[in-house]
Every structure is written in structure tokens, then in C-alpha cells.
């Protein structure tokens, strides 16, 4: 039987259409993916992301461990609660997973990794951590709810305990704070303001119901995907995997080259690739005409060669088809996409497509 999150009964009660996602019964939508998408852009929606893996890393040398484990540099985290997005690479520079890590104390960092990569991530952490005396502790007894949208914070704050509310009010973007087992972070995967809240599993259903009563609508994985695509955020397994380096996945900004003496797993391979130059890159596409871009459609970049769409969909906010595509590195301003045997023109653009409800590219 598939895994169920502590909110499974809520999804059923909310009319969620449940599908298998990485071994979990998860709601793809609760009726209309478009309405849920727009709800997050215009007001506030909530996602059950309890299937994601929360991992606590503890031990005196945790910072040193993460300096070696991640291509991004945890030394960028100076204030307690601050979050960092980055990739965990293999020796050849391929992405094992992308993740968020929160600095809490020098002997305590919290990581949130993808559900679909749970087993290999844990295996990798368990393999690398002992050399640093770091303890890897999964937290399956915790649930996680993301509340996202321009009104997400206003609707969430009154529902928190006094202490949690006081801390959450003060959070700057990309920071998190504890109140007991509750961990509230001002992060997300939609391009909107909001919180990601880690809380005890047995408190999740009540909190979900309170959020719903406060006007926050349940939002499924379908809308989560179109929201993150509009926001220009990569999806592991679609836009990058172990055969793709961050430099080929529009994630160069997450690679901290300086200080040069910091060794991290995959560094040598990345240095080599940087020196030789990448042959492909990940770009945004906007379809000029009617139609819908889909994963795996072929992209033609004239004399430069061919590529492929890694994430494609209809953008509810822009009312146009948008995508990420991995294309030859010299691809120009336009390309052709093979949509069911027809070649249609797409413009090459720089994501994000949408941020805080506003279009970021000219249509």
C-alpha cells in the first residue's frame, strides 16, 4: 500500500483526486487545478508537503560536513534560522538532489529533501556523515504544510501560538524559527510569499482545518507544478538528475566557487566542466502561438542542434504555454518545438516567468 501523510483523511474529505507520487497517495487537485493555481497567485493556498523528507543533522562538525557535502556554501549562513538552497552532487558533478538547508546552531542544521529521492539521499548522507561525526536523523513523525500566496502570512499568523506568531511575524524571507516542535519558515516553491510549516504529525489535521476555515484553500500537486514552473524553479528528476550538473540546469548560481580552497563533492568535475565549457544549458521557453508545451517534446535550435523540454505546461497566469528546455549552449532567441508533429516557434526567455503574481517577461 502507498504511504499516506497525516493529512490523508483531510484530502479525502476535501474531495482530493489522489494519485501515486513517489510512493505516496497525494492529491493532484481538489477539483480544478487552474482555480487552485489562481488562488495561490491571488490569495492563499495550502499544500500538504509531508511526503518530503525532513532530516536533522547534528554534531559539532555539522557545518564542516555541509561545506563538503553541498555545492553551495553553508558559510553563507551566518544568522540562526537562515536557509540556503543548493545541490548535493556526486563525484562526477551530477545532481543527487536539490534541497533546502536551515542553519539553526553550529551543531544543528535541518535539511528538507525530495520525497522521490528519499532512499538514495539518506544512503548518501549516511555514507558521508560518519567521517565528520555527524548524526543523520530523519523526522517522519513531523508533517509539513506550505501556505503560499499574497495573503498567506496574514491568514496563517492568527492561527499560531503566541510564541510562534511572535517569531513568524519577524521572519525575513528565507528564514525559519522554532516554537517547540513547530518550525515556521518563510520559504516556498511558488514564487509567492508565505510559510512552510513543519509541525508534529498529530497536530497537522487540526491546523489544516483551521487554515481552511481561515480561507486558505487546499491546493494539489498539479498546481504546485505549474506554480513552480512559472516561478522558474527546477523540479528534480525532470530538470536535472545525476547525469546533469548544476551548470547545465540553470543552477550555476547555487555553486559557490569561492573560496577556491573549499573542497566539496563534485567540485573537481565541475571545475573541469567550467573550464571546457558546457555543451548544453537550461532555458525558459514561451510558445508564440497556441498549443501546450509538454515534457520531452523535441526542440530544434537550427544549426546548433536539438534539445528537449524538461518541464512544460500551460501557464495559467500568462495564459500561454511555457517550459524549461535543455538546449545546445549557443541556442539563440528562438527555437522550434515539435508539438505532435507540428513545428511551432518558441521564444527563448530567462525565467522566472512570474514572481509575486506579476508577469516577468514580455508576452
Amino acid at each position, binding site marked *: 500500500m502507498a504511504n499516506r501523510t497525516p493529512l490523508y483523511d483531510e484530502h479525502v474529505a476535501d474531495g482530493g483526486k489522489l494519485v501515486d507520487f513517489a510512493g505516496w497517495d497525494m492529491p*493532484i*487537485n481538489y477539483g*480544478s*487545478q*487552474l*482555480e487552485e493555481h489562481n488562488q495561490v497567485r491571488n490569495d492563499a493556498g495550502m499544500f500538504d508537503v509531508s511526503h518530503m523528507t525532513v532530516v536533522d543533522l547534528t554534531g559539532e562538525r555539522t557545518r564542516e560536513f555541509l561545506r563538503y557535502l553541498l555545492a553551495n556554501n553553508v558559510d553563507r549562513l551566518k544568522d540562526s534560522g537562515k536557509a540556503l538552497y543548493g545541490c548535493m552532487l556526486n563525484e562526477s558533478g551530477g545532481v543527487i538532489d536539490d534541497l533546502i538547508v536551515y542553519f539553526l546552531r553550529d551543531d544543528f542544521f535541518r535539511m528538507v529533501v525530495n520525497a522521490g529521492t528519499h532512499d538514495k539521499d539518506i544512503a548518501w548522507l549516511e555514507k558521508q556523515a560518519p567521517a565528520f561525526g555527524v548524526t543523520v536523523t530523519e523526522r517522519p513523525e513531523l508533517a509539513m504544510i506550505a501556505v503560499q500566496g499574497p495573503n498567506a502570512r496574514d491568514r496563517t499568523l492568527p492561527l499560531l501560538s503566541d510564541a510562534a506568531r511572535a517569531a513568524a511575524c519577524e521572519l525575513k524571507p528565507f528564514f525559519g524559527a522554532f516554537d517547540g516542535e513547530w518550525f515556521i519558515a518563510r520559504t516556498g516553491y511558488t514564487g509567492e510569499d508565505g510559510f512552510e510549516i513543519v509541525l508534529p504529525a498529530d497536530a497537522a489535521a487540526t491546523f489544516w482545518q483551521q487554515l481552511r476555515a481561515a480561507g486558505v484553500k487546499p491546493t494539489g500537486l*498539479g498546481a504546485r507544478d*505549474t506554480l513552480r514552473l512559472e516561478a522558474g524553479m527546477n523540479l528534480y528528476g525532470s530538470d536535472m538528475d545525476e547525469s546533469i550538473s548544476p551548470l547545465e540546469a540553470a543552477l550555476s548560481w547555487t555553486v559557490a566557487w569561492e573560496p577556491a580552497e573549499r573542497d566539496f563533492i563534485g567540485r573537481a568535475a565541475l571545475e573541469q566542466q567550467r573550464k571546457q565549457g558546457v555543451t548544453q544549458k537550461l532555458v525558459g521557453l514561451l510558445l508564440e502561438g*497556441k*498549443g*501546450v508545451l*509538454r515534457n520531452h517534446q523535441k526542440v530544434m535550435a537550427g544549426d546548433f542542434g536539438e534539445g528537449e523540454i524538461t518541464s512544460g*505546461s*500551460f501557464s*495559467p497566469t500568462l495564459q500561454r*504555454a511555457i517550459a524549461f528546455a535543455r538546449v545546445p549552449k549557443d541556442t539563440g532567441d528562438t527555437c522550434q518545438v515539435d508539438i*505532435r508533429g507540428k513545428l511551432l516557434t518558441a521564444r527563448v526567455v530567462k525565467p522566472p516567468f512570474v514572481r509575486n503574481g506579476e508577469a516577468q517577461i514580455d508576452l
Partner: protein
Amino acid sequence: MSNIPVELKYAKTHEWARTNDDGSVTVGISDTAQDQLGDMVFIEVPEVGATVTAEEACAVVESVKAASDVYAPVGGKIVEVNEGLADSPETVNNDAYGEGWIFRIEPSDAGELGALMDADGYTGFLAAEDH
């Protein structure tokens, strides 16, 4: 439960067909089909005047989730298409059997309608497909 009007005929590929007074056949996708596909974002209709054979793919409905072919339930000539769907693809979700029609065919052999299922047949077909 799904809405399956008794006056219509149904194909295994989830199209419905309505025979009009002039003998032409209006085609759309069933309520079950639109529900499975989810929010429609783009409908590609056939060209008026095109000749199609039964079970030929002649239109495409694209939802946020996926693209799906629409097959001609009977062969013949396309005599009208629903131009309104270009601007309002969601009509297929909201009124699958009415305003959400996709095209109209002048059948070359009305006998082909006999190969389609009636409402009871389609209901049973859906139940079997569920298992």
C-alpha cells in the same frame, strides 16, 4: 456519478455523438472524459470541409495535465466546428454535452452510428474500465 445523457451515443474513446434533425452528427467528449482530463486549456478543432473516417483522430483536447486525441465516432465530412472553444476551452469542462461540443459531421454512412454504445452500454463500459 458521471452525467451520461440517454439520448446520446458513445464511443469507447469517450466521445459522445448526437444525431441532429438534418442527419448531421454533433460530437464532443463525455463528462467522464473531461473530468479525467481536468481543466482544458486548448482545443484544436478540425478544418471545416475535411473528410474523416470513423475512429480517425481529428481534434485534440489539451488540459493542464495532458493532450488527448478526439476520434471521429463516424466517418464523413466536417461541416461545422465550435470556434468558441478557441477563447473558452473551459466550456468543455463546464458543459460537455452542450456548449462544449467540438465538431459536427455529415456522416457518409449513418449505419456507423450503430457501432456506438447507448447510455447503458457506456455506463457498463466505464464500470468495467474502472476495474
